[in-house]
Structures are given as structure tokens and as C-alpha cells.
């Protein structure tokens, strides 16, 4: 059980990519800010711990957790079965939908046409496998910024991404976009910790529940996202 060692050190090391606005990103002061760090810090505080934010590349982020480079990932990680086999999840701490975006006036208007499209996804995200399963022609990129660039550049016809991040990012960039409607379940984003730490999981879950109860969560969500995304 790692809860004890963490308590002993008094520091909770929290990882995220630092490049996924508005959930987590670097501001002009070179600080990592956004929804994720705010939630992470709040949870740590409620557990009586200092939070230390660590940014790391998304494709190695679970590797780093397993390698004990940090204690938790509060980085907008979608809860999936496969991931659940190697890590434990606390949460979900927000929910989002999978969304498919195109440029305005695109020839692709329905999900059935995508067999002929170049589909952009982020390496290592759940959307990659989902798109591949459908037999689409998939191109992978390091992150959302590259995806949006490529959509603009026309090298991909559509991108598959979490709806909130993409919509906010496009707004930020002033990019025009359209969405393709399709049936999709909601996804929960969870906090990943190493397996076999029920006490840690329980204490984090309790902290999360409490902040959802007392309105702190809504304040954070309104500040960074502009909506309650529970």
C-alpha cells in the first residue's frame, strides 16, 4: 500500500501531458494550469498533501506511472478496459463524448462515408483503436495541436477527439469546424494510479466526491471549461 509512503513524504506527484488545453496546458508564466491540475491540487489538498505537477509525453505517460515516476495521472485519461488491466482508476472525474470534426463544407457529412476519408487521431488515445476497428484509414499524431493543424492543412479529412477539448481549442484558434453526428456513449475521464492500492483509491475517491458535493468542483469546471461536465 503506497498511501502510507505518500503521506510520509507529504507530496502527491501528479502527471499530465501539459499540452491539452483547456484541461491542462502551460500558461504565459510557464505554469501548468487548467482543469486537471486544479482538480489534482484540490484532491491533494483534501488529502492533506502537497501536489507536484509533472508534465510528460502522452505516449509514455502510463509507462511513467508504472515506473513510479509519479503517483497519479490526472490528465484527462479515458477509462477503458485495457487500461484498467494495468492501472486502477479513480473517478470518473468528468465525462465527455467522442466527436468527429470536419472542415465546413467537407464532402464527409456522415459516419458511413468515412471509409474513404483520411482520419486523424492522437497516438495512444482510445479513439485510435476505435477508428482502426472501423477499418478507416488512420493517421496518428502526437497531440491535438498537430491534429488541428492537419485538419486545417487538409492532410486529414476528419479528426476524432474528445469533444470538449477540441471545441474549446478550435474556439481558441478561431478555427471553423463542423461535427458529424453519430451514436456514441459517454466516456469517463479517470485518475489513474498503480494497481493494488485500494486505500489510496478510496481516499482519492472520497476527496473527489466531497468536492463534487460542496460545489468546489463546479467552480473549477466553470472557471476552465465554462460548463458542468460531471
Amino acid at each position, binding site marked *: 500500500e503506497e498511501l502510507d509512503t505518500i503521506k510520509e513524504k507529504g507530496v502527491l506527484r501528479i502527471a499530465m501531458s501539459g499540452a491539452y488545453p483547456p484541461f491542462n496546458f502551460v500558461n504565459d508564466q510557464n505554469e501548468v494550469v487548467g482543469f486537471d491540475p486544479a482538480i489534482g491540487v484540490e484532491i491533494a489538498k483534501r488529502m492533506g498533501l502537497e501536489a507536484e505537477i509533472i508534465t510528460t509525453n502522452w*505516449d509514455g505517460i502510463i509507462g511513467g506511472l*508504472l515506473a513510479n515516476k509519479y503517483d497519479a495521472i490526472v490528465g484527462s485519461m479515458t477509462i477503458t478496459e485495457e487500461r484498467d488491466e494495468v492501472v486502477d482508476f479513480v473517478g470518473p472525474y468528468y465525462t465527455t463524448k467522442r466527436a468527429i470534426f470536419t472542415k465546413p463544407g467537407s464532402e464527409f457529412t456522415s459516419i458511413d462515408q468515412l471509409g474513404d476519408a483520411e482520419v486523424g487521431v492522437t497516438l495512444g488515445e482510445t479513439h485510435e483503436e476505435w477508428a482502426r476497428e472501423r477499418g478507416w484509414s488512420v493517421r496518428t499524431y502526437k497531440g491535438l495541436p498537430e491534429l488541428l493543424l492537419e485538419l486545417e492543412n*487538409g492532410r486529414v479529412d476528419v479528426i476524432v477527439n474528445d469533444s470538449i477539448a477540441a471545441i474549446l481549442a478550435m474556439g481558441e484558434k478561431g478555427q471553423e469546424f463542423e461535427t458529424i453526428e453519430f451514436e456514441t456513449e459517454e466516456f469517463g475521464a479517470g485518475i489513474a494510479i498503480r494497481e493494488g492500492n485500494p486505500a489510496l483509491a478510496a481516499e482519492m475517491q472520497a476527496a473527489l466526491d466531497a468536492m463534487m458535493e460542496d460545489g468546489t468542483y463546479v467552480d473549477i469546471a466553470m472557471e476552465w471549461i465554462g460548463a458542468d461536465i460531471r
Partner: protein
Amino acid sequence: MGLDFTVVPGYLDIILLGVVWTIAITLGAAILSFFGGIFFAVIALYGPWFVRLPFRAFEWLFMGTPLLLQLFLIYFGLVQIGIDLPAFVAGVIGLGLHFAVYNSELIQTAIIAVDRGQMEAARTLGLSRGQALRKVVVPQAVRDVIPPIGNNMIALLKDSALVSVIGVSELTLSAQRAIGNTYRPFEFYVVAAAFYYVINLGMEWVLRRIERRVQAAR
């Protein structure tokens, strides 16, 4: 948490595909860097000043910045000004140009070192300067730098791993993808390293043979 290589066979197809891509990129970039190197060397030595100066700047840029950054710029940057390169092509061009600049340095020195009598002899036969360069001086210079160029080619193979950052599914990215599914970084990186090493040995073998053949014409 011990090591478990039993997860590897399931992903061997992805890895092998990565090997193929790695070889393709390396081959393409190697060819580009070789001929590009010769071309740059001739330009740097014999081009008119308005070609030489920008070339110097270009050389500087490539020598002074990391390949990683150059790959980003070529892939995500050029398309902003309307040059749309597929990731594979961008990778080949980035790697190829990067090493072409290094090769050019080597070849320039070698061209200068070719005996002046060679140019003279060619000119007395009536060959023009361009012809003499093409048929007499440059072939000798290139032959003299085969070993160090070979070293660059091997460095190029290893730097092809960086092309993963622009999303070409070469060996490193394939390993990362397998890791993304299994979360077993150590096993797959070791496997990837082994493949790189084998390709590297193959290249060294080929280079040794080329060197030996070239030796005859000295």
C-alpha cells in the same frame, strides 16, 4: 514486475512492418543524403556567390539545430506555405537533407584534396570544367570519403527513430504502439533495439564490401 517477452509475438507483425518502414526511410534518406551531399558540395565550392551565400546559411541552420526540430518544421511548417508533404516524404527529406549537409562537408574537403593535376589533365584533353568535375574530380573525391560517408549512413539509420515524432509508423513508433496496448515498455524497446542492431550490422557489412570494391580503383 518481471520481464515477460511472451507478449512480443502477438505484436510481431506490427514490429516487422515497422522494420520495413525503417529500412525504407533509411534507404530513401541515404540516397538523398548521398547525392544531395555531392550536389551541395559542388554548389558550395563552385557556385556563384548568390547561390553560395544562401547555401551557407542553409548549412548553418541544419548544422546548428536538432534534427527533431527540423523534422517538425518540414512536416508541420512547410504545409503552411502550401507545400504538403506526406509524413514519410517529410521524414525522408528531413533526414536526407540533414545528413546531406554533413556529407557535403566531407566531400568538399575531399574535392579540394584531389590533386590539381587531375583537373589539368582533364582540361588538356579538351573537357570543359563541368565535364572534368563530373567525370574526373568528383568521382575521386566521393571515392575517398566512402568510409566517413558510410559512418553517416549508419548514424542516419539510428536517427530515423526520430521520424516517429511526425507519425511515420517506423520501428520506434511501432514499438510505442505495441507498448500503448500492452504497457510493457521494456520488452518492446529491447526488441526494437535488437532489430535496429541487426539492421545496423547489415549496413556495416554492405559498407565493408563497398569499401573493398572501391579500393581496387585507387
